[in-house]
């Protein structure tokens, strides 16, 4: 018998191991549906999603691998998955959703979902659907690369007891932009005079996540900057009206901070921190992307009614300011194993009755994307609810505009690079003037737009 040397034995074992390792395996079965869904703010929100997929699984016999992921993390995970080509079949991002969707659509990394949209196109709110249209630089065309399922616009929330403690009532709250925000500075002064360490204004000024960007852009629109990007995708930042609006927005947001009307920590707030400060009654008012602050208190009837919800104020000229309506999408990355399954689920999920049921189960925190829901279900405009009808009116009935990423994905990069919150930081931390800070931000925006040429 031939004696095998130790060295040859080791080499043989190594070769077998290498051969085993070098044989890639199929990552996911095509007969399954792998879903990554952003975690809800409430248990009911997650439960509604789980129930929807369970029902679809039962109906189709297709196994659903549903993963509910922390919303900010889903973008990181999706980016990694797309880079390596091992993607899920269906994704519902929330944080930075328009950033990730517009960039992936630009790079031709998303499935075209026009057929899904077409199944309910007549029902969709005009702006919600417009905000789901993105440009594909490879195919040189706009198309529907996402399917909107819910939307939101900026809302203002305030504590009635604190306003009353300062000697005011709801009726004293002004309706126009500058007067509205100045009012809370007056409330701040009155409460401080009573020895209360409470801040009148509680908005994020941090160069991270969504909130600071969100508020800045509503200020920008309020001061006349809504045409910063034209529907053609062309950057319009040199328009004097836009530039002036940007400078005014920066000045109006940073001056209260420098005067101490905003908590010092707001320069480092994540999206949840203004909510927490509000619940702790450390701030009188806070802007928020949805009515989630009030909705989180729904089970506490007294607190639910103590919170006042306002839509965005009128312009200083007394005319309505269009709200920026952001739609939250479903998307299917290219390379997904079960595109047909994903589309089948989506078509069922966005049927008006189905979508309405889901949105109601999420306590109405999000707005519908279909006017049919508003018209057919009194829930949305129920006058006995102090918050929901105001949000519906602000986002869906009054004038609104889409975020500019649907015109040009470059603006998604402007948001993700936090150029405007950085401009705020340049004013509050480096003592730049609003004009200087705006100039730096505008130069940064131009550089980004140079990378994204439409057409």
């Amino acid at each position, binding site marked *: 018998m031939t004696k095998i040397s130790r060295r040859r034995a080791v080499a043989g074992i190594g070769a077998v191991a290498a051969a085993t*390792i070098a044989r*890639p*395996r*199929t*990552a996911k079965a095509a007969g399954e549906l792998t879903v*990554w869904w952003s*975690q809800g*703010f*409430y*248990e009911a929100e*997650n439960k509604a999603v789980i129930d929807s997929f369970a029902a679809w699984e039962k109906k189709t016999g297709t196994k659903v*691998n549903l*993963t*509910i*992921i*922390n*919303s*900010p*993390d889903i973008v*990181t*995970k999706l*980016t*990694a*998955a797309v*880079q*390596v*080509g*091992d993607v899920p079949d269906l994704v519902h991002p929330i944080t930075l959703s328009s950033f990730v969707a517009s960039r992936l659509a630009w790079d031709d990394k998303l499935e075209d979902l026009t057929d899904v949209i077409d199944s309910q196109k007549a029902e969709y709110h005009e702006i919600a659907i417009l905000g789901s249209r993105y440009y594909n630089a490879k195919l040189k065309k706009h198309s529907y690369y996402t399917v909107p399922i819910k939307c939101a616009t900026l809302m203002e929330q305030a504590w009635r007891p604190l306003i009353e403690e300062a000697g005011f009532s709801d009726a004293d709250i002004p309706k126009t932009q500058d007067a509205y925000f100045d009012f809370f500075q007056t409330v701040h002064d009155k409460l401080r005079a009573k020895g209360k*360490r409470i801040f009148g204004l509680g908005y994020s000024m941090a160069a991270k996540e969504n909130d600071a960007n969100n508020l800045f852009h509503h200020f920008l629109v309020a001061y006349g900057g809504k045409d910063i990007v034209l529907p053609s995708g062309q950057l319009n930042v040199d328009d004097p009206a836009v530039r002036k609006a940007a400078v005014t927005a920066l000045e109006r947001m940073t001056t209260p901070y420098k005067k101490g009307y905003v908590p010092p920590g707001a320069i480092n707030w*994540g999206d*949840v921190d203004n*909510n*927490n*400060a509000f*619940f*702790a009654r*450390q701030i009188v008012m806070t802007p928020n992307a949805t009515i*989630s*602050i009030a*909705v*989180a208190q729904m089970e506490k009837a007294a607190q639910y009614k103590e919170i006042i919800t306002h839509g965005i104020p009128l312009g200083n000229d007394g005319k309505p300011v269009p709200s920026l309506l952001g739609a939250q999408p479903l998307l299917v990355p290219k390379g997904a194993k079960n595109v047909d399954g994903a589309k089948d689920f989506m078509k069922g999920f966005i049927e008006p009755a189905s979508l309405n049921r889901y949105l109601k189960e999420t306590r109405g925190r999000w707005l519908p994307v279909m006017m049919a829901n508003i018209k057919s279900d009194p829930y949305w405009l129920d006058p006995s609810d102090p918050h929901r009808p105001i949000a519906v009116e602000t986002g869906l009935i009054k004038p609104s505009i889409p975020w500019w990423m649907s015109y040009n994905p470059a603006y998604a990069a402007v948001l993700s690079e936090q150029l405007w919150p950085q401009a705020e930081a340049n004013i509050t931390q480096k003592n730049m003037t609003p004009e200087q800070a705006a100039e730096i931000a505008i130069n940064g925006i131009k550089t980004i737009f140079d990378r994204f040429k439409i057409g």
Partner: protein
Amino acid sequence: MSLARRAWLNRLATHTAAAALSALLIVWTLVPLYNMVRVSLQGKEDVFSSSVIPESPTLHSFWTVFQESYWLLANFWGQMTNSFYIGIVVASLTLIIGTLAAFTIGRMRFKQGWMLSNAALMTYVIPMSFLAIPFYGIMGKYGLTNSPIAVIAVEVTFATPYAIFIFSQYGASIPIELDEAARIDGASPPQIFFRIYLPLMAPALVAIGTYALLLSWNEYLYAFLLLSSEGKLTVPVGLGKFLNSDEAPWNYLMAAAILYAIPPMVIYYAFRRKMSGGLTMGGVKG
């Protein structure tokens, strides 16, 4: 002023400065930990109160974690089990690979063995986070995404170079004459490894085992990237979900974090003496 008095004053100033600095460092270190405990002892509505001492301290948060009776904690003990499983397997594999490699390099006269241990250390030049996407790709190719094996493989990859280095350095302090004597008595390399080498390496084994366990215990990035199913998540990823809600359940988060910190603390204190001996050994041998 007399020389003795001046010296006394100097000593007093030095001691006062040292005491002040120590007090500052103690406060700096303990305040965050105190805050964790304070918040965990408060009710959900009181977590943002400015009082330094909880007004109505309660163990309700800990009880909630134990019972998994809050929706974000629904699978806390399952996640704890996953963390333990990953941590123990990572520690075991790191020890097995590290000791075998160090033994081969140091005791079997492997040519240019020092280059292997130093080359392994060079892998630390690239930060872990930079390798996240390549690792994700590799695991995806082999169908290991959403498998604890993927996280274990990554953690072992990162822990092993340090383990090989420390074991090599520590092993150098064990006289080679012991091996030679054993060999003369007829011991084979495996016998030398198990009967002589490993028993004498005990302090280093404890140190590196604890290090590898803690590395995987605290891991977030790779755990959240590579694991997806609810039933496979580890505690750090599970706790990350708290940072996504409006309901501010900071008291539950802090209670869960305290409970999660207990096992590493127990392990650290149980093996503290042996651990410091093992970790410092690499620093004095060239």
